[in-house]
């Protein structure tokens, strides 16, 4: 079965029970994506499939044949950092770091949803075309990613630095 992972084509044969998370970690050697709860409750396994954020632990890999998957390893050019990775460092957006790859992939998926005008539970006016990434919007939209160290303030600051428009 063929996939494009971080821009590179790969081909692997595997048991249909294999989750996309296990395909990435065990078959493709990409251990940046983390297994937290393995039941869709923590967000540590978040990856991007065709620019959309999903939970790789609840995804059967066979369903994603032919799709383009981006993990934390594929965000930055060689030896560099994605601006969001740098912002997480600058704002102490982590302590142990286990949830960080999921947080960062999730935030990148969130930015795409904001660009598209997808509303959230924090959006007051559902008919609005343009979503302002307020603190409430950011926290609601990132609520699928838990951080057991409680680095939320740093995480919010890091994401806001990269994606929130400055206040007028």
């Amino acid at each position, binding site marked *: 079965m063929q996939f494009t992972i971080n821009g590179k084509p790969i081909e692997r044969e595997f*048991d*249909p*029970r294999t*989750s996309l998370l296990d395909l990435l970690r065990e078959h493709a050697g990409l251990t940046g994506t983390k297994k937290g709860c*393995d*039941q*869709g409750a923590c*967000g540590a396994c*978040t990856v991007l499939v065709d620019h*959309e*954020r*999903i*939970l790789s632990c*609840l*995804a*059967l890999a*066979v*369903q994603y044949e032919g799709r383009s998957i981006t993990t934390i390893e594929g965000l930055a050019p060689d030896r560099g950092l994605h601006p969001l990775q740098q912002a997480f460092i600058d704002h102490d957006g982590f302590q142990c770091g286990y949830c960080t790859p999921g947080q960062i992939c*999730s935030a990148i*998926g*969130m930015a795409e*949803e904001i660009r*598209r*005008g*997808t*509303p*959230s*539970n924090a*959006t007051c006016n*559902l*008919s609005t075309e343009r979503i302002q990434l307020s603190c409430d919007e950011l*926290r*609601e*939209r990132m*609520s*699928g*990613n838990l951080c057991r160290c409680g680095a939320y303030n740093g995480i919010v600051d890091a994401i806001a630095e990269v994606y929130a428009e400055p206040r007028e």
Partner: protein
Amino acid sequence: MNPFTYTRALDTSDAIRLASAYQAKYLGGGTNLVDLMRETLERPTALIDVVNLSSGIEERDDGSLLIRAATRNTALAEHRAVRTRFPVLARAILAGASAQIRNMATVGGNILQRTRCTYFYDKDGSHCNKRVPGQGCDAIEGFNRNHAILGASPACVATHPSDMCVALAALDAVVHLRSTNGVRTVPLTQFHRLPEGRPELETILGPAELITAVALPPAAFAVRSTYRKVRDRASYAFALVSVAAALELDNGLVKDVRLALGGVAHKPWRAWKAEAALKGQLATEENFRAAAEAELAEAKPLRDNGFKIGLAKRTITAVLNELAEVRV
């Protein structure tokens, strides 16, 4: 997880033919089924992938919507017609799960979600009539803070977890089904079953029957509609109590009203009694409270969930008050 074969269905007929031939389950986004299979609570020997069949939302001239079953939850919540004409549905979906899960989950799969009763999940330590019919229910005498207050039975006190379905129940949604016997339609309010003596039977689906779409009839009342979910944390948690409501006013009188509750029963709970109590009455807080009282009159608390009765009444009253103030 038990072994299974995986097949991508080419079209609806192919899916039904394949599912009839094997002990198969249909696979949508997988957000509930994959978890249940990992826990071996579901043990299909074949999965028929229907996620690439029939997605998209059709707007009809009469104002109705036809939502194909494989439409992702995100796509439904961000659809312009849903946001502007059926806001209760967009709000309900956005109150559920997380963005990642809404990106994966389909409308059909959301309807077929199974309960999150912890005794149902605890296969090694608990009795559950849903899991093993006739085994008994440990929730009834156990930690049942999250369990049902309406329509429960001595066999099962589990709740249905979906937010989307609560809005669909309020909107008179109709589920389109297809099997080897042909097509049929069933109102969403009649699609899920109350537990009675057979809690393992959760819906009226027949063998290999597939949800192909959900239709929303034209609804003038839905413009003034919303969804409120009360839960233990501000986001990413199942409902303790939720309320989907729509209100159409005429000179201060309730011309039309729709009300459904989540987190309180084995199925999305359409509040028929409250609606009947309100129609033609003045849209006042007093009448909203009386309607809520009428709906909850037959609620039966368990050891830990008595608070849900008062919470449901207050939430219904607050949501209707809010809607009565909305300018549309």
